[in-house]
């Protein structure tokens, strides 16, 4: 089992195709759809046609028979030009489709997975509630009870990605279904009693759809239980482990975007009669950005490699997520500095990244939670 992060010819070709799509389709539109806070359905559908939402799933369910690394490559390349679309892809695959693929019954997969894989619909995963997202077990107030052959769900969820787009088909929610018994239940969009609030006004990720959900006597058939009753806790822990690698890839995309943009700008922009990049104070910042991009990339690819080899990867996934998200915040701050006043406008990619970076330290497990997981794994 030799350690290799080399991409196959096909992965490299695919990475280039996604990079080209990101540069020619996403980048020119990103300023506007972010400024408008608009979820760019047309572009998401195009990503669907390219197969991005089906990469790690089998062809049997409409997937692309790709692997997790290939998914991460796509997330990184999209995230390099726009973080909102990067998280839309990450959450669509990692939170929307992956739990269904991994834990769903045959009938559930047949029903919902193919259109999710083709990117015709989007799925969401609702874990976080008003009382907290770090301590899911302690903060979950949502309850589901059995009435005849149906679940009746009451409660609410907070900050749920992809829950209110016109493409949203299903929202999987965790609920207590008994004393200490957590169950994941699939709720199709449009089910009576499910209220989706207007989008949040966020600091960043302006074009990603994030919603608060209320469940008021929401009824779904018992066969909408994801896998088995009582498996909810275990399911979401597994889902989040994988998600951390993907969030790390998204963060690496952001850092790489800062490297690219700053290298260009530092050559073009003149002050005191020379390009600003001729000053080591600027050039060294960019060297540091490059160090961050490469080290963070190696870390997520290492975690990914462990996962694909069937080795334990929980600790490595946490390290990748923690390290790359903190590097992304630093990168966005320094890149904005290099752009000067322009960097503080949302016309520039680095200005948008300054807004987008912070959430990387919060979503899918905060930095504190990652440190908690790593230190626990060390036996502390």
């Amino acid at each position: 089992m030799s350690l290799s992060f080399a991409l196959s010819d096909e992965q490299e070709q695919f990475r280039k195709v996604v990079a080209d799509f990101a540069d020619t389709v996403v980048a020119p539109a990103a300023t506007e759809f972010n400024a408008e806070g608009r979820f760019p359905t047309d572009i998401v559908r195009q990503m669907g046609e390219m197969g991005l939402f089906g990469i790690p799933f089998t062809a049997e369910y409409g997937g692309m028979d790709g692997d997790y690394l290939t998914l991460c490559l796509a997330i990184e390349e999209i995230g390099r030009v726009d973080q909102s679309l990067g998280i839309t892809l990450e959450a669509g695959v990692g939170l929307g489709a992956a739990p269904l693929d991994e834990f769903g019954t045959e009938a559930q997969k047949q029903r919902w997975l193919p259109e999710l894989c083709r990117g015709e619909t989007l799925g969401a995963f609702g874990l976080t509630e008003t009382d907290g997202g770090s301590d899911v077990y302690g903060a979950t107030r949502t309850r589901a009870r059995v009435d005849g052959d149906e679940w009746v769900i009451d409660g609410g969820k907070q900050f749920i990605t992809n829950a209110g787009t016109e493409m949203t088909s299903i929202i999987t929610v965790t609920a207590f279904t008994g004393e200490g018994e957590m169950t994941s239940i699939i709720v199709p969009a449009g089910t009576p009693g499910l209220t989706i609030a207007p989008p949040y006004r966020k600091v960043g990720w302006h074009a990603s759809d994030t919603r608060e959900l209320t469940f008021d006597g929401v009824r779904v058939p018992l066969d909408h239980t994801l896998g088995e009753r009582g498996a909810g806790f275990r399911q979401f822990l597994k889902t989040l482990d994988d998600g951390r690698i993907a969030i790390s890839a998204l963060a690496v995309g952001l850092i790489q975007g800062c490297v690219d943009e700053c290298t260009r700008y530092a050559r073009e922009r003149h002050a005191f009669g020379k390009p600003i990049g001729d000053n080591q104070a600027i050039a060294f910042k960019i060297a540091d950005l490059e160090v961050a991009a490469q080290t963070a990339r190696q870390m997520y690819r290492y975690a990914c490699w462990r996962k694909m080899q069937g080795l334990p990867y929980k600790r490595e996934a946490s390290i990748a997520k923690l390290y790359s998200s903190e590097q992304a915040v630093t990168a966005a701050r320094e890149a904005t500095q290099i752009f000067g006043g322009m960097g503080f406008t949302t016309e520039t990619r680095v200005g948008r990244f300054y807004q987008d970076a912070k959430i990387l330290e919060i979503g899918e497990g905060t930095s504190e939670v990652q440190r908690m997981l790593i230190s626990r794994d060390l036996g502390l």
Partner: protein
Amino acid sequence: MKVLVPVKRVPDTAGEKKIDPNDRTVDRESVESVLCPVNEFAIEEAVRLKEQHGAEVTVLLVGPESAQPIVRKALSYGLDAGLQVTDDGIAGSDALGTARVIAKALEAEEFDLVLFGNQSTDARTCLVPAAVAELLDLPSLTYARHLEVDGDTVTVHREHEEGWDVVQSSLPAIVSVVEAINEPRYPSFKGIMAAKSKPLAVKSLADLGVSPEDVGSGAAAATMYEFADRPPKEAGTIVEDDGSGTAAAQLADWMAEKKFV
């Protein structure tokens, strides 16, 4: 229905191209090679014919062995098979030499329609499609900005400066397309994975029955003796608006002097 799409490997349009002073051809090491972007429009049109008429599409490339990834790239859009003509004797061919090889390769295939790009992005002679049509004595429908196939008739809108002509012919026919014809899709991950297992035949000049005297640098009608780097861009004239209203007049004079207006 059988469609052939001839595609060319070209140096990346965005890259800085260099000429190798030894053989005075493009220095392939200096810049990344890509599938000619104009060919993507022909491929998209072929994919649509696949979707609408169940067309079977073969991609054809004349070029060295190292150009094989370009054939695979073309296949990744969902085409069915590849054919590559590779032979040391082809090196240095001019447009007519290239057309001779393509014509011979086509003769050995069954086809209803050949979809060229109207020009390559490197040499840009626009000669190859018409030359192939002439060599095969087939209808030549060039500069197509729209294409329709109905039974054994093909109709295209041939683009020109004032608009377009509607041109029709029977099949088989040779068509070249311009970029206005469609918006090419991106290859899907599935397409990329499938491309590596699509059949790809490689033929030599001898396989095609092409005489080495008819192609290659020796047969080229034109010879390049010398070349020079493009001179650096000169600084342009800057017209400053000082608020007095003379800037507009200066601009107009400048445009008149350059015969832009």
